[in-house]
């Protein structure tokens, strides 16, 4: 099911959410935030077993330590994010009207560092991932609330992310949509394919394959490798726009990161 290419964001959201609610009538909005676990009872059982001693807990603790530690100038991250205790990650990524760009949570943290004369952290560094793990944890169960303002540049960023999701690429000629819309719920070998709806709610995530907590953009890279396609870099403009589209479509689902995936 290909979403019509130039339709308005809200129409895309309604069409796609309705599509998945119809395809999986037994799943609630909340269930979709659990990705493949909502569709595969065996995978869900092993996930719940691992959740007894969550391997991402240390990332949350370290993230909290970093977050509450003052910068050299005496200021705190909390000064940049005054509402952080109520949870803020459900509002990321957002369209920044000042710089005309999509800003992810990782980037917002780095902007805060720069404002406080601290060097920015590399996109996949432990410290940055731990900080996002803590903020994601504080947002647990908050509904994802992404806005696409009417500004043409914001619309264009959204449309670029959407186009990327639906465009075929790589030697194997797949689009993201081939696997995560057209074949969502089906099995590729033994892997159940998660639906687009809910793919951004659980990040950062501890992946058993990685043996550590990693980012959504690192997961994008994994999917590019599977289809033998050229990939972009974490926090590149195209990956931020892709995240913008995917997160917008998941509006209303609860944030449940950090989580665990195979």
């Amino acid at each position, binding site marked *: 099911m*290909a979403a019509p290419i130039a339709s308005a964001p809200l129409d895309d959201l309604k069409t796609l959410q309705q599509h998945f609610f119809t395809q999986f009538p037994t799943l609630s909005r909340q269930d979709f935030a659990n990705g493949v676990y909502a569709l595969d009872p065996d995978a869900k059982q092993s996930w719940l077993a691992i959740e007894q001693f969550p391997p991402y807990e240390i990332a949350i603790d370290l993230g909290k330590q970093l977050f509450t530690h003052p910068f050299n100038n005496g200021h705190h991250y909390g000064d940049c994010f005054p509402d952080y205790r109520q949870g803020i990650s459900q509002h990321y990524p957002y369209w920044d009207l000042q710089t005309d760009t999509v800003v992810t949570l990782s980037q917002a943290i780095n902007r805060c560092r720069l404002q406080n004369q601290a060097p920015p952290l590399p996109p996949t560094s432990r410290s940055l991932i731990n900080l996002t793990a803590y903020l994601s944890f504080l947002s647990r169960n908050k509904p994802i609330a992404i806005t696409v303002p009417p500004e043409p540049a914001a619309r264009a960023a959204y449309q670029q992310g959407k186009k990327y999701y639906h465009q075929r690429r790589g*030697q*194997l*000629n*797949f689009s993201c949509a*081939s*696997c995560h819309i*057209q*074949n969502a719920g*089906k*099995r*590729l*070998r*033994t*892997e159940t394919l998660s639906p687009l709806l809910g793919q951004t709610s659980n990040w950062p995530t501890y992946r058993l394959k990685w043996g550590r907590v990693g980012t959504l953009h690192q997961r994008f890279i994994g999917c590019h490798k599977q289809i033998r396609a050229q990939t972009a870099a974490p926090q590149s403009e195209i990956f931020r726009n892709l995240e913008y589209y995917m997160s917008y479509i998941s509006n209303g689902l609860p944030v449940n990161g950090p989580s665990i995936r195979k």
Partner: protein
Amino acid sequence: MKIIGLLCTLLIAGCIPPAELEQKLTGQQLAFDRKKGNCLACHRIADGQSPGNIGPPLSNLQQRFDNKKDLVNFIEDPTVFNPATSMPPFGRNNILTRQEIKTIANFLWTLPATQTIIP
């Protein structure tokens, strides 16, 4: 010399030129191997372990295609027959050689209608 000989026995694949190695793989191996056809990613095929279910089971293909050449053409580029298909264009994108595709088609052509399928 002795050492090279030993290495060759250990890493047989490394000592055979790629073209020769290809001929050594049977149609079933080419269809099952994850680095080759990996058809099991999407199709049930007799005797294949842990198949996916994105495409239809591959059995009884003599009913579905008039001749083997049509089957080869389909595997070469299924998007010609259905632009929206999620099956990769194995020939057009050089995922498999024409010879490999023919070898797979020969194997599939012989599969009976009723078969042992391991779920």
